């Protein structure tokens, strides 16, 4: 029986207003973010523009600015903000007892 939530580690391991990645063998990375006010979000680590590594961007408010061409992506919906159009897969996240849990199905789908 495979659990639906993947335990990836402690919340504190993600820098505030920063991110960490989760590697899925044979697939793309997942970027896990922590905002200034302590919320955790996860997206496929792939900008809808030209595939920039969102995990390497600057996190501000509830968005991340892609390091390649500065598109801003909403962390909760994965949508590009402002004039830009595009969407990155969102992975549901839970924080429980200080541990970060990713939705397994969504993770595998986003990494595929």
């Amino acid at each position, binding site marked *: 029986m495979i659990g639906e939530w993947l335990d990836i580690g402690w919340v504190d391991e993600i820098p505030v207003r920063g991110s960490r990645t989760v*590697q899925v063998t044979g697939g793309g990375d997942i970027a896990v973010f922590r905002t200034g*006010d302590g919320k955790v979000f996860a997206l496929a680590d792939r900008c809808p523009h030209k595939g920039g590594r969102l995990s390497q961007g600057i996190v501000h408010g509830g968005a991340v600015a892609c*390091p390649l061409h500065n598109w801003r992506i909403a962390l909760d919906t994965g949508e590009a903000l402002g004039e830009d159009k595009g969407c990155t897969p969102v992975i549901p996240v839970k924080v429980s007892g200080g541990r970060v849990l990713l939705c397994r199905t969504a993770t595998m789908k986003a990494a595929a």
Partner: protein
Amino acid sequence: MEHQTPSPDTREHLVVIGNGMAGCRAVEELIARDPTRYRVTIFGAEPHVNYNRIMLSPVLAGEKTFEQIVINDHAWYATNTIELVTSDPVQAIDRAAKTVTARSGLTVSYERLLIATGSDPFIIPVPGKDLPGVISFRDMADVDHMLEAAGKGGAAVVIGGGLLGLEAAHGLTLRGMKVTVIHLMPTLMERQLDEAAGWLLKSALEARGQVILTEANTAEIVGDTHVEGVLLKDGTVIPASLVVMAVGIRPSVALARDAGLEIGRGIKVDDHMVTSDPSILAVGECVEHDGNVYGLVAPLWDMCRALANGLTDSHSGYRGSVTSTKLKVAGLDVFSAGDFSGGGACEDIVLRDASRGIYKRVVVKDDRIVGAVLYGDTTDGGWYFDLLKRAEDIAPIRDMLIFGQSFASGGGAADPKAAVAALSDDAEICGCNGVTKGKVVACIGAGNTTLDAVRATCKASASCGSCTGLVETLLAVTLGDEYSGERLVKTMCKCTSFGHDDVRREIVAQGMRSIPEVMQKMSWSTPDGCSSCRPALNYYLLCALPGDYKDDQQSRFVNERLHANIQKDGTYSVVPRMWGGLTNPRELRAIADVVEKYDAPMVKVTGGQRLDIFGIKKEDLPAVWADLNAAGMVSGHAYGKSLRTVKTCVGSDWCRFGTQDSTGLGVKVERMTWGSWMPHKFKIAVSGCPRNCAEATIKDFGVVCVDSGYELSVGGNGGMKVRATDFLCKVATEEEAMQYCAAFIQLYREEARYLERTAPWIERIGVEYIRERIAEDPEGRDALAARFLFSQQFTQDDPWAARAAGEHREQHAPMARFTPIDGTREMA
């Protein structure tokens, strides 16, 4: 028991475990509905009647006495024929026999049982946690302990900078103890407050004499027979005779678990607070409803209502609660409600009033309030919370929402212009400079039709700027269509109404020391800025406070954060420094080895005469650096807004035209300037004669050696718009050339705007100005050069070495790795 019933009481027997806030409230609700239905017995572990736990903080602070916080006195129990058993915790529940047994051995049978055991304080499992003098903050006994310790004076450490910890710290401070708060997270009350409000709170507490250590991790509590201090993981020891642990609470479920009830994070209950055993109910902090546990009283009231309804056969059940919090520390008004994390579809409405120390943030999603954080002025907290709970459509009052209820509903004005127009003439507009509306209007009337003109003339909005919006509205109201609304100065970004120069000037003038401080004092309109202002502020602070400012990694662009260049496929390129463009077999070999070992697909000579290794994976970077370091090479900073390279020609050593040792000078200049952070990338070149093989006249700083000395020129750029340098002056010696170079760089560092290269900077301010400051003002030049060299001593550390040694290791390695067991099934 105080009250004797003459005939045996045949009513259904309800036994309550826990004489706290929820247990007694449930009984109150029940009595209010049907006073005759149940015979009630309450067991309490504490020796007291039912008191208001949240008022323990004021008791500790000396603002209230225990008598003043009693909710139900003995008379209440007597009048309602409730039997109260105190100081006798229940230790077992026998569900089959339907009895409970207390510590004293007293066994009572029940028809209905209500568990309201509340929470247990969480004690971090560090050595020394059981020493006398280490206590939690939960009940009256804890307060008595603290008061006793405070009576002896001395120092206290509070572990935990949340609501409870800060209230304890406040009380102990008022009682005369020297208090240090240790908090694991970067900001205080991080669950309730955002970073901006957390920063304000920290500053205010520090102003009251408390020491607040954030990102501090407790390793051990030290002492022989009694606590003597706290040892942090970083080795710091803080002496203390009292340690209060306030790091969190856990639902108290041991009793229920032993009885075999279903437990999640708390005792699981349904919408009528019934547990997995139909005759047992549970309420308060010890329960889990619909996946949630609560640590505040408001939800308990809702639960108690639902529970009483269930017990009296009416049907509205509990649906969960939205919560709000306030900090009960006199003079520090802090309020937080709902979800303020923001997100894509959310918009933040932020008001920062620096002169009054106010920060308000309301988070709006689809025209509904979803969260609010207020600091300094919490009068409208209840109003926002009410709008939030009722999911009221705020579109009609949106523009005035942040000014609060009285403003938003004042005079039915649905337009901020009308609201401002309605202000009286002596209403204060600018708090810093005491400028009234009348004065601003008169000033505009006298022909000052732009914000900057108003600022210059009557000083409104010229200090902290928090009234900028009001002044702009006044301009619009007074001038009507004439007011274009356009600022002359381009603002730094959408988060502020100030331009770069204003921000830089104020950082220095007001001695600001951190990004949140700048954002508060200069009234930023976003909670934590954006990807344009944060890197700029980080740089300005770094430049203003060499050696003192703590660099903010998360406000740096990825290249600087990872000390390598990100490429379009997400890999990185690495450029080791080659002083003056020189290299040797050992370095070349090390580079060749790295290329092979890490499978780098390409090596290239850069425009700045360095070797660039392409296609390195993020996780391999530390190992690559370690290998290059081993060959004596350091980071070339080819990724940074910083000194990149010093390009040289071969000069007098080899070239038949060479007049001076251009290579040697280039090496010296690079040794002096490497590692310095700048507004933008910065390149230097030194050519040995006017043939200029190093192309020194299209560099930010160029030296062309001639027979009689060194020609210095500045502001060149080979970028998108090629610009040749302006001649600065000629100097006679190498030493002078170096000193002028240092002075010029420092002037650029201190005065250019972030992301402005020297070429546009010089075109903006004129090369004359540079000549005045560098060539014609020897004292000013010395001072600039001295400031440059001073700041260099803090930054000439190879960032690669630190990283190779493991610093910020987490930025390179993934947090976790997964291998799908069976791809097809998993991805279905």
